[in-house]
């Protein structure tokens, strides 16, 4: 033990008696500015604008035509709908690797001879309902396994990814099934005010997704479960049940995407949606939704999808091989995530 001979205390003049002044005022207002959803989305808009410029410079009129823009939007629509569902699951701290396979399975099931015959005899809506039901049931199985079976989401949906693909191959016998129900094709290949029905469907799903995530109790629960599942549980939120609903939701969006895929390609195939899960997760994360959960942005996801599809379009117009495209995509994903982390550490300086 140290023993000091001299032991008078020194007190800095005044400041100890400064009275009870409030503390830490200015820090918060600035943080709010950085944290605003507007601020985050500005970067994405800039990225999209930059891509537009690159596209125009490299491909000229072939890029900047209405036809080409519609092509980009049409290809963005299917991935986009899947991404909206995925945004919910990732916001809640989960992941669904099976979306591509489940979509493929739904296209196959909805285009089997039996389903198509029934649709031809009654109404084409039968095919739609079939696809939605298949997607939702796959999601339900994922949800029950994850929420009540306590299987890690990564493993459960990985298993579903493999199994759904296999089931699709069994049902289709690895044959491509052509859709022959004319009213179905007519409906989904039509335009409405000059814009394809597929794009309208993406718009509707995205708007609905935004409203549900930001303006409803369902969305609030999703954010709470992702932000702190234990706190949500102790506040009385039924976390397990909500998780199950979320995986049903993403399965349902896979069903919608399957219907759109059938309309666009007229083919039900077990190879539909191969590797889509990767594009979808990448688009969601690039859009700014945190992989650890607790923060999700539908607007960001829409931009993420558009950025990826515009990029693919530019590469294709410039005759780049798909292999080179994949390398570029990989680089872009890493850069986007690095930027996101830089941003996240700046907003959490305490």
């Amino acid at each position, binding site marked *: 033990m140290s023993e000091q001979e001299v032991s008078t*205390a020194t007190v800095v003049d005044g400041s100890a008696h400064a009275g009870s002044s409030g503390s830490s005022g*200015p820090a918060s207002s600035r*943080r709010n500015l950085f944290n605003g959803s507007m601020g985050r989305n500005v970067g994405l808009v800039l990225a999209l604008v930059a891509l537009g410029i690159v596209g125009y410079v490299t491909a000229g009129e072939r890029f900047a035509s209405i036809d080409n823009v519609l092509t980009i939007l049409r290809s963005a629509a299917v991935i986009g709908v899947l991404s909206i569902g995925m945004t919910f699951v990732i916001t809640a701290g989960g992941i669904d690797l099976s979306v591509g396979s489940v979509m493929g399975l739904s296209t196959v099931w909805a285009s089997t001879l039996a389903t198509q015959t029934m649709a031809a005899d009654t109404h084409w809506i039968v095919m739609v309902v079939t696809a939605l039901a298949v997607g939702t049931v796959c999601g339900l199985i994922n949800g029950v396994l994850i929420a009540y079976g306590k299987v890690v989401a990564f493993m459960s949906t990985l298993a579903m990814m493999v199994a759904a693909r296999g089931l699709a191959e069994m049902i289709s016998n690895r044959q491509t099934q052509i859709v022959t129900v004319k009213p179905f094709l007519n409906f989904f290949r039509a335009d409405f005010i000059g814009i394809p029905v597929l794009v309208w469907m993406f718009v509707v799903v995205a708007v609905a997704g935004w409203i549900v995530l930001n303006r409803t109790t369902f969305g609030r629960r999703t954010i709470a479960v992702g932000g*702190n599942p234990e706190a949500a549980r102790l506040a009385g939120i039924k976390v397990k049940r909500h998780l199950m609903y979320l995986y049903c939701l993403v399965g349902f969006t896979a069903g919608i995407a399957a219907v759109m895929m059938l309309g666009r390609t007229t083919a039900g195939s077990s190879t539909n949606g191969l590797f889509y899960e990767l594009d979808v997760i990448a688009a969601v994360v690039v859009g700014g939704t945190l992989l650890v959960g607790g923060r999700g942005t539908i607007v960001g996801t829409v931009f993420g999808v558009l950025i990826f599809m515009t990029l693919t379009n530019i590469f294709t117009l410039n005759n780049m091989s798909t292999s080179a495209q994949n390398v570029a995509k990989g680089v872009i994903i890493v850069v986007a995530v690095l930027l996101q982390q830089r941003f996240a550490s700046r907003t959490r300086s305490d």
Partner: protein
Amino acid sequence: MVNADPQPTRPLLQMRSIVKQFPGARALDGVDLDILPGEVHCLLGQNGAGKSTLIKVLAGAHQPNEGQILIDGEPVTIPHPVAALKLGVATMYQELDVVDGLTVAENIYLGHELSTAGFSNRRVVAKNTRDLMRRLGHPEISPHREVGELSAAGKQIVSMARALSHDARVIVMDEPSAVLDSEEVENLFRVVRELTSSGVAIVYISHRLEEIRQIGDRITVLKDGRTVAQNLQVSQTPTAELIKLMTGRAVDNVFPAREPVADEAEVLLAVASLGLKGEFSDVSFEVRAGEVVGLAGLVGSGRSEILETIYGARHATEGTVAVGGKQLRAGSVAVAVDAGIGLCPEERKSQGLLLDEPVYRNITLSTFGRFAKGGFLDEQAEKSAAQEQAVSLDLRPAGVERHARTLSGGNQQKALLARWLVRGCRVLLLDEPTRGVDVGARAEIYNLIRDLAASGAAVLVVSSEIDEVLGLSDRVLVISEGRVVHQGPADSIDEHGVLDLVMEGSAA
């Protein structure tokens, strides 16, 4: 900064006018600190005073924008954590930084593995580890035990051994007693005394002033990122003076007066022969409207488990819980919340709050459904309900749109209380309501709890600090090894009485 008194011994470590600027916040604004060899130097300050930032600067985790650090009178820079260790400065963080999956020895030598040509010298490592454990008074901890199997106290010993393995001359301990019960704190103090007698200096950070009385030599007080007082002798500085320095205002650290509970007051919470296999059994008691009942006991005695079981977060294996005469289904939080029970959990940050969400959403976390029509939220109604509670609980700052992360410990606790008040809960279960809450805010929380009881709530409080349980409650239950060993009015028993009961129970 004036310091008229020449130091009798040459300081081992000096920090001069340290400034650390974060984007949007000046965490340190001119901090001075002198550490003498062989002393226990206590660093005091409220939450947000800059203690954590200061020790991170010292540990090389943050770079100061201005100021100087001297070791043995020589200016040094600490660009990264390894540099700090090389200079003999080791830090034990509050969140114990041990790796659960590795063994004790592997943890201790993590980052500076002893090896020859890439092969680790397992025998040397094991021997050194055994020596360190003996020095720390825990020879029973084997070098080959997996750290995940150890208790919090055991992990802390490992963390301390790691500091010693670096031949540290200064060990910074950030709230080392927060995870320990009183017996383990005694052992910690013994180790600290042993270290200081061999010339090691300890920088000790704690909210518990009584601990500082027991172990500390000198005190430096931080407030708002500045050193407001230094070279205070522990033995000669009254507690009231310290509180005044830390908070900038005088605080009387007394508990609010109890109000007698009427005999005919409604029994709001009735617990009968409640048990959870392996944790506790045969717990029976009642809490009336207007009454505060305290559960006293050591860490691990089962007191938190009792709260969680009443709340339905754990599934009772026997017995019943009834609220207002109505029996609850076991094992369902939703049922308990619907019946009007609210829990403020022990770990506010990990169990209670959404840190990156606005305060109002935290306050309405269990009620936002009420502010919705057909599933669509009415955020304005939500905000005004939250704001109303924020005002009545004197939440500071009162704005409910800032993130919960930015609130101090005491105000986070208020936000959690507000959550249940918005819901109109009449039975409140408070687990360690003042953990991590600084002295100034504690008295406020105490008054708040009393006010809630006075307005007709039934409150059940768990705390490790026996004087807090006794001072705050009308009635006390002493828990030991999962059994209620005493039940009676709080003023009929004192701290020693409780400790005797707890020890007897443990011995049995």
